[in-house]
């Protein structure tokens, strides 16, 4: 979306030694066109231009130290994220089997000037239940869950990017997810 996060960007996936916590750090680049990874992605639109660009009026902040996107997943249920000037947490609260609450909290800094506070609010359009970046995450998770549950007498295996949780230099993979579940299984003694 808007070149903010793409499958072919330089991204780093960092995991702790147990695979339980993870972070994806990526830097917005002046990449043109689509590379190998974006081929076949329906939602990748090369010529797209916004009518009103205020939503992506991005101002680099010194504390970023480089990456423009960092998604930090803290075992078992917290995501702390920065995408450009938008900062938020996503908290997963189970509601029993097959359902969970997904709690979004957006935040800024106490010493943000009014301009920065406004910028963060505008960029908040990317996240939350209607967000340009995140709304389809929720939709896709629901598709996946529905398809996994389709036949209760069988089980489903999704293995995007392999079956282990070793390193991978792009983000179209489920390595980190597998790392987290490997640790979960271990402490649940499954």
């Amino acid at each position: 979306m808007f070149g903010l996060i793409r499958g072919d960007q330089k991204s780093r996936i960092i995991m702790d030694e147990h695979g339980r916590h993870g972070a994806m750090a990526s830097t917005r680049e002046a990449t043109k066109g689509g590379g190998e990874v974006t081929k076949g992605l329906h939602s990748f639109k090369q010529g797209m231009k916004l009518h009103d660009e205020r939503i992506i009026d991005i101002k680099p902040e010194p504390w970023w130290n480089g990456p423009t996107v960092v998604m930090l997943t803290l075992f078992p249920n917290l995501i702390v994220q920065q995408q450009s000037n938008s900062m938020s947490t996503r908290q997963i609260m189970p509601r029993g089997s097959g359902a969970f609450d997904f709690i979004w909290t957006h935040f800024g800094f106490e010493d943000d000037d009014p301009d920065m506070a406004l910028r963060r609010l505008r960029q908040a359009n990317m996240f939350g239940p209607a967000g340009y970046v995140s709304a389809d995450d929720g939709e896709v998770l629901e598709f996946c869950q529905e398809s996994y549950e389709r036949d209760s007498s069988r089980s489903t295996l999704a293995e995007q990017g392999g079956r282990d949780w070793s390193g991978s230099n792009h983000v179209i993979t489920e390595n980190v997810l597998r790392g987290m579940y490997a640790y979960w299984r271990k402490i649940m003694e499954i």
Partner: protein
Amino acid sequence: MLDMSDGYMALQNLYCDYSACLDEGNFEGWPDFFLEECEYRIQPRENYQRKLPLSIMWLESKGMLKDRVYGICETLYHDPYYQRHIVSAPRVTGVEGNEIRSEANYLVLRTKRDEFSEIFNVGRYIDTIRSTADGLKFRSRLCIFDSELIKNSIIYPI
């Protein structure tokens, strides 16, 4: 004959046309209900009442509305659904010059074709409407919804 071009009938008609547009899934037609300089917001009641600005959708110009439509049609991968808007008669809260302030309760039902219809979003529109040569247009439409829970995602406008 009914004269829909003036007064309260024109206002009621604006509400009806707006709902019909979204219920038909005519998203390209949606921005035309607004002025070039406009505001559209979907915000939880809790934030609205506490004067906290965060909204789940906050668009500040007709251009931003068009960008949202592009997102719906081209980039936001989602499970399509029908919307059905049930909107109360508008309650006029003020008239100043060529602007009307009015509110209406709304109930949006969502139907995925292979599932039962369900209540999707319930709240109140808080509107400022301007009379123009092209008829009544929204200068701002706030959709203030009651529950703090959302059924996964809101892709289409309300």
